[in-house]
């Protein structure tokens, strides 16, 4: 901790991260979810259980709100007063939004959740002391705490079920906060492979578990910096910008026909997940 370092690079240290003149260099992982294709079938959620060793907590603990679904399907009705939900439901897969300016990061007393260089909102399990301040400050409430010791005392993976556990992902013990990681274990592999070949990760080269399984392909995931990436193009066409809390959609009249939006944007969390509005036919 040299003071000289501090003083020499002072201006760098005063730069907020990331900013327009210092954008993400190689990677910025982002997602877009088309709510018009999402059928709410829950496949993504189960895939997440399989990929990320999420514990099945059982009825009692679920009833206490101790469930661990890093990606959960929310179901909304909008039949205000009408006798039937005659326009169907609105399904919304909610996962960690990997905010660019994440409320959870600043408040963690031990710095267990940070912003990675490629724009992820990381969670360092073995640094976490379980103050749960991050969850308290998360407007989306997509962080899940290990209220019990699921692997051991609760034994949620009885022999031989524990053999299914993904060796690339830690099994979290009690007292640790956890959340969606954008399948960071897959990203890491893809990145190192790319690095050995002296290139960047190509679009579609790496998929998150939820994206991979989604039967209707509602989820798109990729590198926002990569001009060829589909996700980037989607953000572009929807005119959604990462570091803004008001998009063209909200301001320009003619832009009102855009579908892209981000949830609770007004809180200036700058989420990395863009949703595309669900559509309903007006002719019927």
């Amino acid at each position, binding site marked *: *901790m040299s003071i000289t370092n501090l003083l020499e690079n002072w201006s760098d240290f005063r730069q907020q991260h990331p900013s327009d003149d210092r954008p993400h260099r190689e990677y910025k992982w982002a997602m877009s979810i088309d709510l018009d294709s999402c059928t709410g079938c829950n496949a993504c959620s189960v895939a997440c259980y399989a990929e990320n060793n999420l514990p099945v907590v059982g009825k009692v*603990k679920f009833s*206490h*709100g*101790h*469930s661990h679904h890093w990606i959960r399907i*929310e179901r909304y009705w909008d039949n205000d007063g009408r006798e039937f939900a005659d326009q169907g439901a609105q399904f919304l897969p*909610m996962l960690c939004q990997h905010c660019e300016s994440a*409320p959870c990061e*600043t*408040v*963690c*007393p*031990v*710095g267990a959740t940070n912003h990675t260089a490629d724009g992820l909102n990381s969670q360092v399990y073995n*640094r*976490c*002391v*379980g*103050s*749960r*301040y991050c*969850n*308290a*400050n998360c*407007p*989306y*409430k997509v*962080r*899940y*705490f*290990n*209220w*019990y*010791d699921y692997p051991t*005392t609760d034994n949620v993976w009885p022999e031989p079920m524990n053999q299914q556990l993904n060796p690339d992902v830690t099994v979290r013990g*009690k*007292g*640790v*906060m956890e959340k969606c990681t954008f399948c960071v274990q897959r990203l890491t592999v893809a990145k190192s492979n790319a690095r050995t070949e002296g290139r960047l990760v190509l679009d579609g080269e790496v998929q998150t578990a939820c994206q991979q399984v989604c039967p209707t392909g509602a989820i798109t995931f990729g590198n926002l910096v990569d001009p060829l990436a589909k996700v980037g193009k989607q953000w572009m066409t929807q005119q959604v910008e990462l570091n803004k809390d008001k998009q063209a959609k909200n301001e320009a009249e003619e832009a009102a026909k855009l579908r892209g939006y981000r949830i*609770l944007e007004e*809180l200036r969390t700058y989420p990395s997940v863009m949703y595309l509005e669900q559509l309903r036919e007006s002719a019927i």
Partner: protein
Amino acid sequence: MEKDIREDIAWAQINKDVLKSLESPRRLYWVILLIALAMISVAVGCEIYQYTTGMGVSNKNNSHVWSLYIATFIFWIGMSHSGTLLSAILHLMHADWRKPIYRFAEAMTTFSLMTAGLFVMVHLGRLWQVYYVMPYPNERWVWPNFQSPLVWDMFAIATYLSSSVLFLYVGMIPDLAICRDNIHAGWRKKLYTVMSLGWEGTDRQWRNFRVTYLTIACFLIPLAVSVHSIVASDFAMSNMPGWHVTSFPPYFVAGALYSGCAAIITLFIILRYVFRFEEYMTLPIMKKLVRLTFAIAMVWTYLNLIEFASVWYGHDQTAKDQLIFKATGPYAPFFWAMIFFGSILPLMLAFKRFQTHLPILFVVSILLNVGMWLERWMIISPSFAHGHYPWTWDHDQWPSLVQWGIVFGSFGWFTLLFMVFCKVFPSVSMYEVKEMVYHRSLALKHKPAVKGDY
């Protein structure tokens, strides 16, 4: 009006009375001590259970990640503030009626801080890693996150605790010398001899003592304010509806002084009764104390209303929903109880007849603190039950017995510490009472004759 204290108390008498409070306790003392220990063991039991099984047993969940532990933590921190108020602020203002009662108030400050500290630990999911919060050098250059209000808390409370302990101790040195001089054998003799640092009351010692005491007092006031505004920023700095309120820091400080004063009244009455301190903890002083409390109560009420008003008037629909939920939802009974105990009940204190009616004051002062505890709970839980994200709202998750047990036990812990203190150290500052008596008698002497030549 009658005097705060008789000028003609013999100084030897003062020594005698106060030192008597250190003598071997009566049976009642031991009984209370045992009760306190029992309460503590309940808490310890709960904590062991929670530590081994996991945080889940406290009936928190992914919506209610914080609950009674944090609420009670704030409560105890708040309790600690009025000690500083009495000793430091009134000291600077030369309000000498503080002299007989500030000692135990300071003790209370220290002990409630020590109690509060425990709750931070109890709250942690991984208590065994708590040292991660400390900024200690390590080969990986891993530091705590200095941007986190919790880390500020850590710094602030550490500072506050150590400073108020020192303040208490320095202020006690002359009295320790008195103890040393009057107790002639046993561990007490050794203890006092060591702790009094060989104080002789020489002019040199007094001179530096005066300056030091004044200086620390000056430091302590802004410190106390900063401590509770930092605790407030745990919430004000977050984005939760019902927490993200600009007026929180002053609101918290006011609440802190409020609950502290109430606690002082309670302890005042107990000590006065137990140690027969009628000569020193006199009704006029109580009257002043009660008026002070009343004033602060009104300040708190005002800030409380301001908070509601600003939310009400503001455009943040989420925060508004939150407020309405607080007042009408499942938490409504507690909310209105808080309003009653915190804002309506203290109006009694405005009436002379109650200002010196100890039994009533005793009950009221305790109820005020109940109200203040509820306030802290009403800040925490409703915001979790009804936050930004409707899907994760949770209206029917209540603290488990484990939580209640630990909260309950914390009062035992405080009682224990305080009772031990009262028996080991003089809970009334002898030398300052002497000063008080001396100066007041001088004042009498120098009163101009009725037939003044002017």
